[in-house]
């Protein structure tokens, strides 16, 4: 396999700075769009940062390079964090983020394959991503290609039957070139996952389906990166990384509140959110008002 990008060591401090930029851009993008999801994108900003700035073997200048790692986003509603991360990684100009959900935009409300460089699948209707990822993984195996397929899923979408069809399949075929990552933030649109449709014990369920499961703090870069490295090394089973995240992470009034699952901040809320994010970065608050 062609190794396109020699990995420069990147410090956790640098990753944290990038993740903060990404959170700021998510807020700016959402307030401009006027609709969309807030909690999931903010909660997954650290995982996306770790993937696009350290883990994935990709080349933003050559987004269809055939041996690239693939990222499949199954819960397409967290598209804002994907778009913002891709723009920050150099896949397309950052100015374009402000066109999200608007007419004639390449940034559709839910991701559409073929519309935008770096988007590897169409997603939104829940439960479809893992099947798509399995197909890509089978194609890679048939073609003797070594790329890894990362499938990002929500916890709530595990209510869908198709997910379990795919989990069963991947266990049978020992899909070693798939790394699934679950955003375990415990919320879905109507409330807490354990109230809507309990998923626990979710780790035991995956293990019973012949997967290897790793649990990580979804806001700890070292844990995310170590888990992805381990997942790639495990050859006899597909791997599910359960990333425990805080929905709305970084914005105090959004954190842990399921009501922020499916709505964007209003302009005054966005201002407050940006203020919080920037103060975390250690800057002087007044400078940015």
């Amino acid at each position, binding site marked *: 396999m062609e190794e396109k990008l020699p990995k420069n060591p990147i410090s956790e401090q640098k990753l944290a700075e990038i993740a903060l930029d990404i959170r700021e851009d998510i807020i700016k993008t959402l307030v401009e769009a006027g609709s969309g999801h807030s909690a999931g994108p903010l909660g997954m900003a650290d995982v996306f940062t770790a993937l696009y700035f350290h883990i994935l073997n990709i080349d933003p200048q050559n987004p269809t390079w055939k041996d690239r790692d693939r990222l499949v986003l199954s819960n397409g509603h967290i598209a804002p964090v994907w778009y913002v991360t891709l723009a920050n990684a150099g896949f397309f100009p950052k100015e374009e983020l402000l066109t999200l959900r608007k007419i004639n935009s390449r940034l559709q409300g839910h991701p559409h394959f073929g519309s935008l460089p770096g988007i590897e699948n169409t997603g939104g209707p829940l439960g479809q991503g893992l099947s798509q990822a399995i*197909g890509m993984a089978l194609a890679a195996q048939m073609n003797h290609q070594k790329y890894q397929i990362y499938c990002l899923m929500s916890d709530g979408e595990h209510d869908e039957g198709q997910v379990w069809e795919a989990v069963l399949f991947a266990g049978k075929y020992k899909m070693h070139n798939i790394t699934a990552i679950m955003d375990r933030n415990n919320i879905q649109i109507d409330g807490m996952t354990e109230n809507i449709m309990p998923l626990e014990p979710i780790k035991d369920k995956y293990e019973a389906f012949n997967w290897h499961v790793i649990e990580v703090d979804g806001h700890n870069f070292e844990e995310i990166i170590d888990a992805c490295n381990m997942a790639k090394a495990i050859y006899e089973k597909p791997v599910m990384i359960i990333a425990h995240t805080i929905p709305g992470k970084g914005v105090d009034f959004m954190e842990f509140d399921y009501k922020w699952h499916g709505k964007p901040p209003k302009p005054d809320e966005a201002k407050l959110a940006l203020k919080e994010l920037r103060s975390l970065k250690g800057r002087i608050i007044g400078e940015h008002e």
Partner: protein
Amino acid sequence: MNNLNPKLFDKDVQTAGTRDGYGQALLELGEKNHDIVVLTADLAESTRVEEFGKKFPERFIECGVAEQNMMGIAAGLALGGKIPFVSSYAVFSPGRSWDQLRVSVCYTEANVKVAGAHTGISVGPDGATHQALEDIAIVRVLPNIVVEVPCDAIEAKKTTLAAAAHKGPFYFRFGREKTPIITTDDAPFEVGKAQVLKDGDDATIVACGPLVYQSLLAAKQLEDKGINVRVINNHTIKPIDTLTLAKAAKETGAIVTVEEHQITGGLGGAVAEALVKNYPVPMEFIGVQDTFGESGNTDELYEKYGMSTDAIYKAVQDVIRRK
């Protein structure tokens, strides 16, 4: 009669299942093209992909009874450069996997081929649960996909080869029973081009699938009464051949559509949509009339549900009266 099996009207006309044409074509394709992949959901034998699985095990994927996952996997395979053929009964795929067909395949423009077996009321004894009478409607409403209904095993083979050559989503349906061989190996076949099998000026029968045979029989009987009916094999439902249909409407002034599917949304609906805009003429519709089927043998079901040669014969006379 154009390009028809010379023994078509003989008592011992050769028969074969359209699904057998599919299986044969896949074996040919598998040899020639290493990107061909076949998936099934626990129906390898009855969808006629078992032989492919034996010959090319590394490109044959048994998904278990899980049609939604199968459709999604096919989309992923296509994005990875493969040409997947999704094989199941149409009541399950696209019946159960329609959302995956819509999002993962059609909207994505993934190069996926979906073969729906056991379509039409002629599925017979299994009863209504297994008789796909809605698949044309639910697939042709989706953008970016071709919809084909081969009339016999030879055309099913050609359709399968054409599906592999076509870039993009492609749906085609088969029957269960052995049905007469209507066409010949040399008969022209082109996706999007309806074939005029028999010339005539008094009315036109536009048919698809194995009922093309009953349509030709009815036309032959009408000829004995001095009524000259044109018969069109409209194997491509989408994109529909508006030119050939409008020409027939103009030259014969009346149309009867014939299909083993609900009239609403099926061939009848598609032909009506095309003609209302381009050349409206009186129409009659042979097909399933907004009802479910039941168990029985093929001829009994055709008779009871109004798709027999006699029903077609009568519909042509009815439509001519309305000219």
